[in-house]
């Protein structure tokens, strides 16, 4: 069992929901990412989604776009990200890390070299936003050749054919996109999401984690109640955007910056 699957299974065994924060690696400065990751774990994160910044993030809303711009301005590359994961792993052997990003930087490096580095650095899985399953075979083989989980998105618009292919290629968990739109938008229709998730349960045993549009304890509660857990991105990246590259922060300050994660943890643990 992968570290991702084990982590989720153990939460489920405790009757608890999974909490996954998303941050952009290198945002706003290279040196802040690892301390932020530890602060996230201290605040109750179960898994960390670490965004690999791309110049043209066409599935992201303004908040994460700005995060990616800050990270790129700080000079973040895949090499730096592998180094961050390595450094994080020196202190934390348990928290799974999923790298999430767009295809072009990965293709530029080459799937095999990329998967090999990801695995060697100690990360656990990959989610490539603009790589649909019909185009993914080579990537899939490289990832699984290095024991990495492959997570794919399921959207409200996903039809049955595609759902079957997505379930076949997904390991670790399914990432259910709560809304039609980009990251950071607002969830409008809980009833529809509930119905979709109920349907997903009939076609897959994979854990279903909901993301996009979860910004506080209230929205997290609503989604966690009908799924296996939640992903929090824009609300967090927005706060991290107020930090300054090159400035030093205490642990307590970073925990305060990611305070929304602590709040959501307490809220969903009360479910």
């Amino acid at each position, binding site marked *: 069992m992968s570290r991702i699957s084990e982590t989720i299974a153990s939460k489920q065994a405790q009757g608890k929901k999974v909490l996954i924060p998303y941050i952009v690696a290198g945002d706003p400065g290279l040196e802040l990412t690892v301390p932020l990751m530890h602060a996230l774990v201290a605040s109750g994160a179960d898994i960390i989604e670490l965004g690999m910044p*791309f*110049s*043209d*993030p*066409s*599935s*992201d*809303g*303004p908040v994460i*776009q700005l995060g990616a*711009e800050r990270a*790129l301005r700080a000079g973040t*590359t*895949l090499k730096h990200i592998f180094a961050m994961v390595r450094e994080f792993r020196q202190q934390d052997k348990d928290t799974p890390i999923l790298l999430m990003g*767009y*295809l*072009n*930087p*990965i*293709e*530029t*490096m080459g799937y095999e070299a990329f998967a090999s580095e990801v695995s060697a650095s100690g990360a656990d899985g990959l989610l490539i*936003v*603009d*790589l*649909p399953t*019909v*185009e993914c075979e080579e990537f899939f083989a490289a990832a699984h050749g290095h024991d990495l989980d492959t997570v*794919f*998105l*399921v*959207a*409200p*618009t*996903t*039809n049955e054919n*595609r759902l079957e292919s*997505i379930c076949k290629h997904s390991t670790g968990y399914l990432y259910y*996109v709560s809304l*039609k*739109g*980009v990251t950071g*938008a607002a969830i409008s229709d809980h009833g529809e999401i509930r119905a979709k998730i109920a349907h997903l349960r009939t076609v897959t045993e994979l854990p279903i984690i909901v993301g996009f549009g979860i910004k506080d304890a209230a929205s997290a509660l609503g989604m966690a109640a009908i799924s296996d857990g939640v992903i929090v991105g824009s609300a967090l990246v927005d706060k991290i955007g107020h930090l300054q590259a090159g400035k030093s922060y205490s642990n307590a300050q970073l925990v305060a910056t990611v305070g929304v994660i602590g709040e959501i943890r307490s809220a969903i643990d009360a479910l």
Partner: protein
Amino acid sequence: MSEYKRVNELGSREAEQPNDEFSGPDVHGHFGRYGGVFVGETLIAAVEELDQVYTRMAADPAFWAEFDHDLKHYVGRPSPLYFAERLTKHYGGAKIMLKREDLNHTGAHKINNTIGQALLAKFMGKPRIIAETGAGQHGVASATIAARLGLECHVYMGAEDIKRQSANVYRMKLLGANVISVESGSRTLKDALNEALRDWATNVDNTYYIIGTVAGPSPYPRMVRDFQSVIGREARAQSLEQFGRLPDALVACVGGGSNAIGLFYPFLRDTEVAMYGVEAGGDGIETGRHAAPLSAGRPGVLHGNRTYLMSDEAGQILETHSVSAGLDYPGVGPEHSWLKDIGRVHYVDATDTEALTAFRDCTRMEGIIPALESSHAIAYAGKLAATMSPDQIIIVNLSGRGDKDIHTVAEIDGIKI
């Protein structure tokens, strides 16, 4: 003439097309290793639906009859194939024939595509259309067709481009479109495309996205090519009619590549016709300040397809530079990437300076003010013509008129208008 009837011209819409290397893309939208569908999951269903609808419509003669009718009565086609006698004399060599897309309604080839896609939007019952634009020509063409069909229209345009193409911005507004300034990234065409994709994902139920060139996820590259190939179909017939033979060479500028593929496609099987796609050389390829992914880029994935791109060694998309907003794009349609790799089309470049010289030459010698985009094609055609003999023929795609560019040129001349 009968000699050429044997070759089944691509894009002829005759039911029997030979199945050869030029019959692409495959069912997944691949031209060789290029093309495909690389978008977020939310958009996949929309792209698939569009593919199905277009595939069905493309097999229906009634659809093409309506398209042809609009091109004739609304756009004013066919556009002339005009002998540029003084330019020919000036360059000293092959005959320069200009395919006059500048004479189309709205002043560029872009309208051919928007006519076709708007018919699809109408058929699919989408009341809201969105478009991205660089020079503003595609935005104007989209706003025009939206006005004609009574559709709501939103055009995404980079903040930088809004500054340099203010006349087109005002035209779009007059036509009733909402022009949205894109402030993210490099604030040019690529960022406008990103923003349009985000809008589409958000409003996927009621929105049709009219992409303005042969890029984007499948089926756009194939569909936009099919709509634009009216240019090459006409040019081929006009050459046979005027000269009793096919031209020796075709020259077109390449931004995303729609006017170029529109001219080239019906000639692809005519192996004796040489083809030149002219990218924006900007300050010169060697300076890195250009917009020439085929000449100086590498394959990658952007805006829904795999193609040649201008990206750095980390895979981040580079900012581009060209005096012409319509060529200022780091990618290119995937079919061009494939045509480059198989060697069917030569991809070359013209610098800002060369394009500006050609702009003035064409204006002064032919009384035709060409778009700065098209001026790149004229510039290269001039160089090419000089290496050829007077009995040879070059068809240059004059993709648009240059009224929109007079502010840019005046500014370069230090004149305030």
